């Protein structure tokens, strides 16, 4: 029995090429691996969390070409050819992303376990809408369960970040850049 199993596993190891946070990565994984398992166990990107492993809680949310995606139920092969962005790839340059900054200011993260997933959903929202209403935000986050905050401080954070991004854009326009 053990022999069969070994042969089976050898057959099922696959070489994967994946673009994660702008880096092209190559690695081998058992073919049953989900994107979340590849990120956490192979690439060491542990920012994306496993809360249920069934696609129910949203803690594993990453962006696939900018679209929020549940990495715990996505076979890793399905991510091939797509740009994967995780929480670790959110900040650009020398400081946190405006959403990360805003969550810190309003107390949007308490235990922080749902936070990476919520931030990825929020990034996708702000890329679609520069001035989302509370209803827009609630809808965008409806696939991400938070058990600590009651969501209010998360709404405040996203509104604050949206305003900061709008002001930043205005400042850039005024600079003529």
């Amino acid at each position: 029995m053990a022999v069969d199993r070994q042969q089976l596993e050898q057959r099922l190891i696959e070489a994967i090429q994946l673009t994660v946070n702008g880096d092209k990565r190559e690695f081998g994984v058992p073919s049953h691996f989900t994107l979340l398992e590849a990120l956490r166990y192979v690439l060491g990107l542990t920012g994306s969390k496993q809360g249920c492993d069934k696609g129910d809680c949203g803690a594993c949310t990453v962006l696939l070409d900018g679209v929020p995606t549940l990495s715990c139920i996505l076979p890793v092969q399905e991510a091939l050819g797509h740009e994967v962005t995780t929480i670790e790839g959110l900040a650009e340059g020398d400081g946190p992303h405006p959403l990360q900054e805003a969550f810190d200011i309003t107390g949007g993260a308490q235990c922080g376990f749902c936070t990476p997933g919520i931030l990825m959903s929020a990034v996708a929202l702000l890329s679609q809408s520069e001035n989302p209403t509370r209803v827009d935000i609630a809808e965008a986050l409806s696939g991400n369960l938070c058990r600590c905050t009651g969501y209010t401080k998360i709404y405040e954070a996203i509104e604050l970040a949206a305003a900061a991004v709008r002001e930043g854009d205005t400042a850039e326009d005024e600079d003529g850049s």
Partner: protein
Amino acid sequence: MKLEDFRGKQAESAASEQELHEALKREFQVIGQRLRRTDGIAMSTGAAVYTDDIALPGMLHAKILRSPHPHARILSIDVSTALALEGVHAVVTGSDMPHPYGIIPWARDEYPLCFDKVRHVGDGVAAVAAVDENTANEALELIEVEYEVLPYYLDPEKALADKETPIHDPKKPGQNGNVSKNVHLEFGYVDAMMMQADVVVEGEYYFEGTTHTAIEPHCAIGYFAPSGKLTVWSATQVPHYLHRELARVLDLDVATVRVIQPPVGGAFGGKSEPFDLEFCVAKLAMITGRPVKILYTREEVFYAHRGRHPMLMRYTTGASRDGIIKSVDAQTILDGGAYESFGLVTTYYSGQLITAPYKMESYRFDSTRVYTNKPCCGPKRGHGSVQPRFAIEVQLDKVADRLDLDPIELRRRNLLDSDSRTVNEFRVTSNGFEQCLDAVEEASDWAAKYRNLPYGRGVGVAGSCYISGTNYPIYPNAMPQSAVQLQVDRSGRVAVFAGASEIGQGSDSMLAYIVSEELGVPLDYVRILSADTDLTPVDLGAYSSRVTFMCGNACIDAAQKIKQQVQQAVAEEWLCRPKHVKLVGGWAFNALDTENKMPISEAFNQAEAKYGALGATGSYNTPKDIHGSYRGGTIGSSPAYSFTAHVAEVEVDPETGFVEVQKIWIAHDCGRALNPVLVEGQMEGSAYMGFAEAIMEEHIFKESGLHNAPSLLDYKIPTSLDTPEMQSLIIESVDPEGPYGAKEAGEGPLHPSIPAIANAIYDAVGVRIDRLPFSPPRVWRALEQRGEGERAGEIPPWKNERG
């Protein structure tokens, strides 16, 4: 860069002259400000390392084989085939860890793995460590367990009536082994006062079980070094108790065991005692010499449970015609599940904690906790007192209705004073409940809405109180409940070593605010190292809302010792009085001459030159002997009580029975808000969690003993779209013994949500829903029943809108 240059840089970023003048006028510099957390950016960038994010070299993964039966005797276990599977490194069963454990020292009734009987579906029977999870799972299927299936109990009333096959051996011969605990206490003359009452309201309430549902599943890693030292990383909220229990159960010298608690992804009471996975990773690590990790599946989290006890509560309340509470009689059956857990405390709490914020002339409770063959219940946010709070606050609403009194007015007429005693002799000091009532009344526009909103819409009010920790620890000892050690670096950095458990509530940040306030260092100069039993002094854990009060006081104690040394050393240099040396905003300065100042690091260096290395320990212990002298009088005795009032506004769809909670106004007396952002976060999170229990959550079991819905899809917790708007109103009564006057904020604000919503449903549509949750079928049936009465002319249409 030379030290002097650093100092120059520090001076640039420190407070300006103007700011120092302003600082002198303020009572606090840091406390009360809307500040960031110390760990906020780590959490929002994915940098925070939770237990499951840790991978150690050579780490094995373990899984636990769980019982498919609710009640069975284990006749034999054969692990030989599993052990022979390639990739399997070790298998353990109950006989490998034969000492029982339990959070209450005199009620230890669990084993790391069962060896005589299983008592609920999901009880652990064997554990396998293998190269990966898949291999471990495969090995579980190769373990052969022979069971003798026994009759089982799911209904506590049946378990009470029938003791043929008790779940546990009777505590004394002849007793029912299904009774976990009975408490009967009477204060004053309940029957006589009930006879004198003008109004007597009787009600039967049922609080359905609910569970914590932290988004992080339980996870633990064990490592046994060749030196004989065991290290366990665990997502626990009680590292100190885990430390003790690991050593005791595994027969190890406690000095050779280290428990490290990484950041915890939510707990809410669900991680406040040892669990099977911690013993299993430790034992398997000891056998294999390799690090071993167990991560519960979400299903295992539901079976581990320790959540809210289902309670059947029969209440009788007597009041005078002017609304004064004369007498309260409470008969409660608690469904405890398979084990003891904190059950003794829960049983007391179910009666002890409803005696404020109202005066009661007499009070009696009889609470019986019963074992059933279901996952064990335990402490969930508002331990043991959320259920009776639902009953008593709805009872008061019914009394007000009978007397045609505004329910806020009824509560005002029964206010317990500050600096008083409850009917069960608890000492109450600061009490801001009246201000809480005022705040929610005004913010919700209560007077315009109560009984005045159109049919289908309504408002309800409820109040509550909660402990800020308990005066007596879980295991009796005279040592401090909390301690902090500070270490000052020559750069100006202050390291805080504290046993307190950061579980998302912000306890690390709270300690940083205190150090910053006392020693004048910027917040980012404070490093928090918490909950590592090798490095940090003992704190008993993040439960019973004790951390801010106790660890905060310990931290102030430590910081003030260093502050005095710094003031003394600098005063000698400046030839001024020590009390005039202020430590604020990165400076030591002379309060009488603000131009006379030095960077805080230089002040620390002066003190170090005078006294030697700068460091201090501080501790806090609770007041003792301030409780009643009756047996059980210690349980619920707290150094301070928080107070809360809610108003909930609902809209009920009369066609479907669907209740939409539109808004909850939350006023909470937290003594003093050390950081209002974090206090509001606790208030909103609490109110949300109460709302969830009121409207959605049901931790229930099928006839077979299987969990009805062990997934986050089927066990309904609110999404963003379900959660009502919430408004936090902080009330500061400034407690005489709390740190800067602070009391708890993490659990109290949950309590009134449920009765406030129940009372609002009554205001909306005239039906009482005395059973949780307030689901559409239940509300609809009540509306149908009322409709029949209205059509028959037995009762008038509610608000003249129906009939």
